[in-house]
């Protein structure tokens, strides 16, 4: 199946910053007059770099295709152009240049609850919201029972939605959106809000849609979810398409590696020396069970972090290599110290630490490589933040640690621990 359902060609979106809302008629007239004579906008202030200060290209020359049945993950920092792209796709704003061609109906879960009127009842809002999302009245009538059933708010369906709890409100809204049956579904970071149950429903819907051979566009900061749900991915940065390929390649591109692979680093290739007059870092790598350098491992596989360093002074010290594992949100998952710290003669060493299978949670980790000693107080000899980046992928294929739950699993680690469940003696 290689049917292109979304074709984005040279898409650009330009915003003029500054005094847009407060634009006066006179300024507009000046712009218009300059434009008529083919001159530059006289009101744009240009800074030293030659770039107009009031100019912003939220998207610049972005092109990619999405084929039918693909689940496309769109990753990028805030301001990378993700939202602008979605706005153009959902037609709430028009591009400045380029075009998008689409086959099939687009619906997006970022519209959940749009147009709900607080005074109207749940049932009335189903019709209103459904119509706003592009459904016909007859279509809504046909699916009404199903929607009410799915929402789980049957008892309050004839109550004005202003009396609903926020949870009920979202559930009802989602029920409507979930029954749109679009050919293309856009899921924005709506998953970040709502409770776990709601997130689960969203993901379930997404998977159902993609299994049905339809296309999903998924925008999230949660790289773990992008990694496990998406088949392909694009990485946007500064409004430009940086990487297009598999979901993993887009994630790893986003994960910010400046080098070839974020899973390994060779300090000899960096101009800056990492270390002091005792220790110098040489290299670092994430290795799989076979000892190959990788940037991604399955959650069910062990991995090794290895660091090469050279002792160049004070060999009497007990140098302690240690690794700090950070989650993609920046939080520290844990720190692990080498267990075997003893004085070693000057020379090069490889310190390797094995992280067992089923230990880390899925998601993106960065590793900070540190060498410390404690002889004269805590002394940090070498320290490289985010030296390595790797992704732990959860194939969500019924692993024991999930027990059938398909939603995101919080936490830095996800171990498989031994349990006992035994019947209690009844007297």
């Amino acid at each position, binding site marked *: 199946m290689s049917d292109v359902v979304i074709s984005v060609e040279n898409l650009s979106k330009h915003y003029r910053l500054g005094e847009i809302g407060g634009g006066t008629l006179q300024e507009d007239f000046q712009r218009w007059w300059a434009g008529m004579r083919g001159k530059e906008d006289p009101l744009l202030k240009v800074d030293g770099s030659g770039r107009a200060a009031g100019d912003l290209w939220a998207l610049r020359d972005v092109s990619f295709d999405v084929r039918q049945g693909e689940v496309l993950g769109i990753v990028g920092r805030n301001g990378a152009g993700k939202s602008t792209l979605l706005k153009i796709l959902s037609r709430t704003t028009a591009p400045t240049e380029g075009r*998008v061609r689409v086959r099939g109906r687009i619906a997006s879960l970022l519209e959940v609850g749009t147009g709900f009127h607080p005074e*109207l009842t749940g049932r009335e809002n189903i019709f209103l919201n459904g119509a706003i999302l592009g459904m016909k009245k007859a279509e809504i009538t046909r699916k009404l029972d199903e929607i009410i059933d799915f929402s789980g708010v049957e008892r309050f369906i004839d109550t004005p939605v202003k009396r609903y709890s926020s949870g009920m409100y979202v559930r009802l809204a989602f029920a409507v959106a979930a029954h749109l049956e679009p050919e293309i579904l856009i899921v924005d970071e709506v998953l970040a809000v709502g409770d776990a149950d709601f997130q689960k429903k969203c993901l379930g819907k997404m998977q159902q849609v993609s299994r049905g051979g339809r296309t999903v566009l998924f925008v999230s900061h949660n790289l773990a979810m992008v990694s496990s749900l998406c088949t392909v991915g694009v990485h946007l940065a500064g409004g430009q398409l940086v990487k297009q390929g598999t979901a993993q390649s887009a994630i790893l591109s986003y994960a910010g590696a400046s080098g070839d692979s974020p899973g390994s680093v060779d300090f000899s290739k960096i101009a800056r020396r990492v270390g002091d007059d005792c220790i110098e870092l040489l290299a670092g790598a994430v290795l799989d069970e076979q000892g190959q350098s990788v940037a991604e491992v399955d959650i069910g596989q062990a991995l090794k972090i290895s660091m090469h360093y050279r002792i160049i002074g004070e060999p009497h010290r007990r140098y302690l290599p240690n690794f700090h594992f950070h989650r993609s949100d920046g939080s520290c998952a844990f720190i692990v110290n080498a267990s075997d710290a003893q004085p070693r003669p000057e020379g090069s060493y490889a310190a390797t630490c094995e992280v067992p299978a089923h230990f880390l949670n899925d998601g993106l980790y960065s590793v900070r490589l540190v060498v410390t000693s404690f002889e004269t107080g805590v002394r940090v000899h070498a320290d490289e933040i985010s030296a390595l980046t790797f992704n732990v992928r959860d194939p969500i294929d019924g692993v024991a640690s999930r027990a059938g739950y398909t939603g995101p699993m919080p936490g830095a680690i996800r171990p498989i621990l031994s349990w006992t469940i035994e019947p209690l003696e009844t007297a």
Partner: protein
Amino acid sequence: METVNVSPITAESAAVVGDPPRWDMVIEPKGRLFDLKLGELWHYRDLVYLFVWRDFVAQYKQTVLGPAWHVIQPLITTLVFTIVFSKIARIPTDGAPPFLFYMLGTMLWGYFSGVFSATSSTFTSNANLFGKVYFPRLAVPVATLFSRLIGLAIHLTFFLLFLAWYLYQGSSVTPNVWILATPLLLVMMAMLALGMGVIVSAFTTRYRDLAVVVGFGTQLLMFVTPIVYPLSTVPPAYRGWMMLNPMTPIVEAFRYAFLGTGSFDLPMLAISAATISVLLLVGVLIFTRIERTFMDSV
């Protein structure tokens, strides 16, 4: 499904190959100039219906009197107008019973100004909704047109009841066959309000000043339209100017049809219809242009 080879689409190849009609939607920087998207609006007619229904139902939720307000409001306005303009200011009404004269006037102006002021804030008051989901934006002002029509119908019903009462009392009103022109006159009035409303709404996205102008402008506009006085009281020197107001011949024609006063000036009505058509066309054109990017400037 037919598989189409589209792998590397570049601007050049697309231009050479042309654009076979296999895309359901093409999003481009600028729409065609005369693309009024009326077909799309028709496609969304259920939405228009539901907007109308929402406006009507939601308006009087949690009120004691509910839709009765549709009756009370115009009746009180009519009474006040009758007392102030007829009894106190002693403005003549061409011999028509003042109560009927003002009831008709407030009905027409109420509808026109209601539609105009509601549609003129289309973009600003729906920014939140428009920012999230696409549907033809014209659905909102068009729905306003219809939902206000319900109020007008109630108003008209009561007007006809009072008219019948006055006739029964042997009053000098002479409703005539021109009543049949009512639908046409209503359409003209609605289109005028819609045309003016969408023009203002499009410019309000950039110039909020217009929202203020609309507020007192509609009030002032009422005084250059023969609502609280008949056209016959206007000095002939000004009457020509008055007739340039597209609302003037419409109001006069209504009066002629229902009360037998006023005038049914066909040439002026034709000019009025032409003006309205131009306003509406220009309005919808500007509106459909603005709706593409207005989210960037609100």
